[in-house]
């Protein structure tokens, strides 16, 4: 390996990355008795912030109240919150080792950076609402539930691909 070469290294073969990811998921099952997740951490953090800004509003809201618990322990001391912190670190480490850290806007060739950021925000909003309806996202439902043959997760996974392919034509300008 040439240490003076700072160009980004190629990504791993998708099947081998998938195998690695599968082993991480398997170890979560074996060690913790649960799978991976992501979206739930955002709800915990939002509930905590809302509780700090508007305590009465947060405790009266059924969704936040679920995440705030009985108040004896911070909702941030949560498995998913710590797992997502790990994701940030793991992603950073992997990119750093492969020279892929870059301050940039990733986008299709035909839209401006400004438009891309607006769509990224809107996509985040829609994605999160979907994840809350479905009780999980691509990690917590599709990956985890898929491996557990969870009935709802497989229906969910088919719908993610279905929704994505159905919408793809209308948003082709963003990516092609």
């Amino acid at each position, binding site marked *: 390996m040439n240490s003076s070469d700072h160009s980004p290294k190629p990504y791993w073969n998708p*099947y081998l990355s998938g195998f690695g990811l599968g082993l991480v998921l398997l170890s979560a099952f074996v060690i913790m*008795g649960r799978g991976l997740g992501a979206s739930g951490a955002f709800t915990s953090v939002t509930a905590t912030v809302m509780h700090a800004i508007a305590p009465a509003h947060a405790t009266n809201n059924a969704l936040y109240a679920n995440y705030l618990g009985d108040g004896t322990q911070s909702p941030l001391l949560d498995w998913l919150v710590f797992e997502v912190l790990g*994701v940030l670190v793991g992603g950073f480490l992997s990119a750093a080792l492969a020279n892929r850290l870059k301050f*940039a806007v*990733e986008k299709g060739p035909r839209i401006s950076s400004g438009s891309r950021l607006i769509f990224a925000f809107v996509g985040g909003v829609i994605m999160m609402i979907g994840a809350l309806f479905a009780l999980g996202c691509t990690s917590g439902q599709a990956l985890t539930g898929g491996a557990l043959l969870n009935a709802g997760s497989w229906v969910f996974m088919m719908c993610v691909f279905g929704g994505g392919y159905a*919408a793809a034509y209308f948003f082709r300008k963003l990516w092609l």
Partner: protein
Amino acid sequence: MNAPFYSFGLFGDQASLVVAFIIGIGFGFFLERAGFGVSPNLAAQFYLRDMRVLKVMFTAIITAMTGLYLLSRIGFVDLSQVYLVPTFLVPQIVGGLLLGIGFVIGGYCPGTSCVSAATGRVDGIVYVAGMFAGVMVYAEAYPHMLGFVHMTSMGQITLARLWDLPYGLLVFAVVLMALGAFVVAEWTEKKFGGMEPDPKGWLSVRPWRVTPVRVLVLGLLAAGFVALAAGSPYRGNHVTIDTKDLALRAGTGADTIQPTDIADWIVQDRNDYTLVDLRAAKDFDAYHIPGAQNLPMTSLSANSLARNQKIVLYSSDSTQAAKALFLLETQGFKSVYLLNGGIQGWHDTVLFPVKSPGMDAAAFEKLALVAKYFGGAPRETSASTSAALAAPMAPTPAPTVAAPVMPAAPAGGIPAAQHKKKREGC
């Protein structure tokens, strides 16, 4: 060895957060290695240009699925202790479709956006901000759509239980499906992606060449075949019973649940528990608590109940219910409870609550509402208690519970017709 380690108490909540962090590092690392920190790589999936999302996802799913299956089959992992997200069919269809649309618009999913943000991508950071906004939008709307988010509830259910097929057969089928999808994905990339065939791709190199991906594919296929032949992963579990804990729970009453709590759960349409009626089928058919399933003692096993779910037992015979509780505990069920007082307790405290001397009007009003919801009626005094109590104590309690003895003159009682109609709905 007993796994999952956490479920068997090998470490506590504090340590679990450290585990979470380490597992997260692995998760983030492989997502980044796969190229998932960069949105065009992900979005390309939906334009058939680059199928890496499908390849990575399905490889991960079948790796974890076959691995977990085999570890369960040899008795290392107790599969029934692994948490299953409950199925709510319609909300999950709607959620899935929204997620797919959000994926195309935003270019990430929640996990990959974290990797993107952590590696400096501004669109990833903005996407994360969008997700926080999404939580706030949903939270404000949540109280108004409780009916929707809880509809079509099916409980914690695997495809194997849903279709009544052997678990191993489904594992094998999913492996085959995934490998088929990989072949199609390679073809699509060539056709739509305009990609030169990877000279080292698992379908491109000469048939006799051994490559890591080929070894992986063959290994997963072999694991699938083993699953097909090896039967149920739920067999071969070893359970250790903590008798001290069992005695402590029984002694402190920590293993009982009040009928009024069950009533609240039913009214709230909660889905995180299973209510089991242990009585004979004819008694069950005559009357049962709404949502209960009828399981006689002989069919109490992991095949009909999930070990990781909260189970509440009731019967007309408290000794029988207690025996059933112990039977389930010996089978490794972790959270089994008795309905306090059994069906009689339900009858006396929920269907026909009595106003106790010290009770204020508002509290009794609430009890009355709940009673009417379930087709019962409150009693102002316990004067008529003896009649109502005596009847269900008769040798054949079921009919009396089915047609509860109404107090002669319930103060402000509901008309008999309405009473009957409501109970049929139960």
